[in-house]
């Protein structure tokens, strides 16, 4: 990348500006080396890897029993779906059955997680875009309040608020505690009510519209070619949601809509996520209404770290996480550990679209676009 500083006159000077890795709008640790002409971005070099822990090597050195709770540290904002991707791959290659009740519990956990994750996205994104949106931190504090309620539910369910270890090959580790379902219904009702309040604050807010409409457009072609997924793909007019396109964990049992917007801008991604909030709540209610009886795991509880063995084989399992397609490609050699584990992180692919859409935008829009991508750097860097 050019490291040039050409000072001239007439507005044609180029300036190299460093943004991050400790930038508050970086949502983690992301460095963008921007080349600017005036206020316009003409080039971007994205630097990632600050959170790299080599999860794929870790996966090769830890057993199928040990790794699921580490898997949650890839996408730590949506740990439930990250764990689910790993155990799904183990179950696919190992041909391990999952009881119906466990499948429904997984759906419940995944949908609550999506709501919690979208709360964090909405809050931090509005904070990035600053004072015009009701004092900057207002939406953030509201959204974080709702997220806390859902983390309370997760704490009651698993004992942990961020990294759960809820899934295990063959099912889930915990069943719903007494009184949990009622608490969950109350929380869902409250969150649903408050979504109306967020929309009242944002949908007709002139500042919000100016900062999001027509900003950061990802075309349908670019979205597919880069391999972005989740709300980014659906905001660019592609009707693709793994819960519908390739149902896993009994998603075919539930009624829900997949929102699709065609504009491809920040506002389209906002609308997609706001509808997803409500659809996730609908799915969670359906789980609570019809949760089948039965065992929560087809395998006994953990007695030793090497007790799950997967026969020789390979497979790619994927789930629709809050940020899109989270997948694990797993090669097993018959032992207690994988021979190879590849993480397809949704955030990695989503973030890699930035160098293609940032050139040409104003520097102030960079934070709005980055927030609309909703990257989690644990999953980008893995």
């Amino acid at each position, binding site marked *: 990348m050019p490291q040039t500083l050409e000072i001239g006159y007439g507005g044609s000077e180029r300036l190299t500006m460093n943004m991050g890795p400790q930038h508050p709008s970086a949502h983690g640790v992301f460095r963008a080396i921007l080349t600017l002409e005036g206020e316009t971005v003409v080039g971007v070099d994205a630097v*990632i*890897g600050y959170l*790299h822990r*080599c999860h*794929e*090597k870790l996966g090769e*050195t830890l057993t199928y029993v040990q790794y699921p709770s580490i898997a949650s540290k890839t996408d730590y904002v949506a740990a439930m779906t990250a764990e689910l991707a790993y155990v799904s791959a183990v179950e696919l290659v190992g041909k391990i059955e999952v009881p119906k009740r466990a499948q429904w519990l997984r759906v419940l956990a995944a949908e609550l997680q999506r709501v919690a994750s979208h709360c964090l996205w909405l809050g931090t994104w509005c904070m990035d875009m600053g004072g015009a949106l009701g004092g900057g931190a207002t939406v953030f504090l509201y959204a974080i309040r709702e997220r806390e309620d859902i983390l309370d539910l997760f704490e009651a369910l698993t004992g942990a608020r961020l990294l759960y270890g809820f899934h295990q090959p063959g099912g889930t580790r915990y069943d719903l505690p007494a009184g949990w379902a009622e608490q969950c219904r109350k929380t869902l009702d409250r969150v649903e009510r408050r979504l109306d309040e967020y929309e009242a604050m944002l949908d007709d807010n002139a500042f919000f519209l100016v900062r999001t409409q027509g900003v950061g457009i990802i075309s349908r*072609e*670019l979205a*597919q*070619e*880069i*391999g972005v997924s989740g709300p980014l793909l659906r905001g660019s007019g*592609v009707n*693709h949601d793994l819960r519908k*396109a*390739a149902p896993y964990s009994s998603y075919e049992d539930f009624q829900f809509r997949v929102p699709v917007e065609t504009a491809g801008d920040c506002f389209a991604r906002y609308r997609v996520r706001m509808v997803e909030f409500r659809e996730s709540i609908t799915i969670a209610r359906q789980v609570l209404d019809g949760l089948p009886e039965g065992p929560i795991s087809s395998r006994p509880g953990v007695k030793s770290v090497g007790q799950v063995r997967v026969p020789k084989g390979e497979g*790619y399992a994927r789930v629709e996480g809050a940020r899109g*397609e989270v*997948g694990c*490609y797993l*090669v097993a050699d018959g032992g207690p550990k994988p*021979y*190879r584990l*590849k993480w*397809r992180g949704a955030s*990695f*692919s989503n973030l*890699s679209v930035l160098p*293609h859409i940032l050139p040409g935008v104003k520097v102030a829009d960079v934070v709005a676009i980055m927030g609309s991508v909703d990257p989690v750097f644990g999953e980008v*860097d*893995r």
Partner: protein
Amino acid sequence: MTPLTAADAAARLREQFAVEPTVDGALVTVPLALEQWQAAARFARATLGCAYFSFLTAVDWKEQGFEVLCRVENLDARVAVFMRTRLAPGADRCPTLTGVWRGADWMERECWDMFGVRFEGHPDHRRILLGEDWEGHPLRKDYAVDTPHAPYR
């Protein structure tokens, strides 16, 4: 026009490249010779409509060499094509797919970073997750997990 099925895709790949694809549900797995890698990618994109780039990675089969894998999808027909090719033992060069899908850019950089597979023709062949001064490629099987590296020597 009837939508493409996995069986159609497999038949067309077999006809075009004289390979033996396997079909499992909506997934077509196609083993390719290294010389066919780019041509098969262009065929998947243009003829089979696989516009969606899912991921690209490698597996280190030790003395048997590296295997490079690439998964792409036709989202309208819901057919996925999983291309795989073997590099010769000891070889570390593979043609780039960045000209076919721009999404291959970061994935190939990651593959270079982690496995030391060079993608010939890649426009920006740098490491991506590790620093430029990192020694070795961690996902190679001969790279021990406790390989010392500054500042943790």
